[in-house]
């Protein structure tokens, strides 16, 4: 197995994973989507709301705001596994408060920066997410409870978005057959082909999504789109709570923990079978 990084930004990554099957890549993808935990607001206590939006509407918007947190330093429990029995305590819940009021003349937008966290290191990922707009003489007062959750419970806990993989593309042009008609340059929406001098050349082979559309427009059939299924082109974005490398490490750890559990159960079942 080999990993070749193509790009790495604070919230997106693209890399080539060699000598694996697509099934393996899918295991990583599914674990990252459904099992890697993140922190978002789950319960909202509305103390006062005279804004134009309903309580539920605002609570839903608050829930979708990604919160920045350090998964290892924070040491939060999942609420249903916590000693408090799911009521919510400071081992499983982070409280954020919001209080905003307008006078008779002004109207303001309530932003995510108005959410005050009681826990150092936990805050909305961006300070300029509009939550609601308040007109004159309106008020909003909330208490929000954030907790850890997994993507399989609700999509708001998914730490990643647009996570995908594909077989490694190998587009080639047969120079003998090519008539330089330039049709493929217009046809490919991913900008794989480019004109250099008076010849058409493959400029960005990794952009190819294997859609085969260029094959249709190429009259002399000069193009072949090959693929290498032992290599996987993997890319995704994170929603801010975790960075891409942490997300991948965490999903690896979770897969290993599952296999460990499987091994232990299998061993104990076999041992019982032997005794009886």
């Amino acid at each position, binding site marked *: 197995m080999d990993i070749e990084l193509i790009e790495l930004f604070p919230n997106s990554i693209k890399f080539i994973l060699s000598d694996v099957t697509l099934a393996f890549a899918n295991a990583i993808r599914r674990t990252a989507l459904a099992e890697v935990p993140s922190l978002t607001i789950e319960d909202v206590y509305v103390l006062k709301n*005279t*804004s*134009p*939006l309903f309580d539920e509407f605002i609570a839903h*918007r608050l829930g*979708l*705001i*990604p919160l920045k947190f350090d998964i290892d330093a924070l040491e939060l429990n999942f609420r249903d596994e916590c000693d408090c029995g799911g009521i919510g305590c400071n081992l499983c819940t982070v409280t954020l408060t919001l209080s905003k009021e307008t006078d008779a003349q002004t*109207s303001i937008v309530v932003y*995510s920066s108005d959410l005050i966290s009681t826990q150092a290191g936990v805050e909305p*990922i*961006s300070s*300029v*997410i*509009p939550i*609601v*707009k308040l*007109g004159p003489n*309106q008020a909003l007062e909330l208490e929000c409870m954030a907790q850890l959750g997994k993507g399989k419970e609700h*999509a708001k806990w*998914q730490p990643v*978005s*647009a996570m995908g993989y594909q077989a490694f593309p190998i587009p080639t042009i047969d120079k003998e057959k090519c008539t330089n008609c330039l049709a493929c340059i217009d046809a490919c929406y991913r900008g794989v082909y480019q004109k250099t001098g008076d010849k058409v050349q493959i400029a960005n082979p990794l952009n190819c999504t294997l859609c085969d559309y260029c094959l249709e427009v190429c009259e002399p059939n000069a193009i072949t789109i090959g693929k290498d299924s032992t290599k996987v082109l993997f890319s995704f*974005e994170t*929603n*801010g709570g975790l960075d891409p490398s942490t997300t991948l490490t965490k999903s690896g750890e979770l897969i290993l923990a599952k296999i460990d559990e499987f091994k232990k159960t299998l061993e104990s079942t076999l041992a019982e079978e032997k005794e009886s």
Partner: protein
Amino acid sequence: MIIPIRCFTCGTLIADKWDEFKIQIKEGEIPEKTLDKLNVKRWCCRRMLVSHIDLIEDFLPFT
């Protein structure tokens, strides 16, 4: 109503780009260029910003 927090299709955060998008469009920038500048890559996320109408401004006087 008000800009949705995340893209309906892929779940990426988009609401944080709305204010900047609105300012740049008012200054006469082409939406396509603005979206590129804000690093909104996919079609699903781009339509969230391009097709949004802030209705909350309209009915604020009636609340």
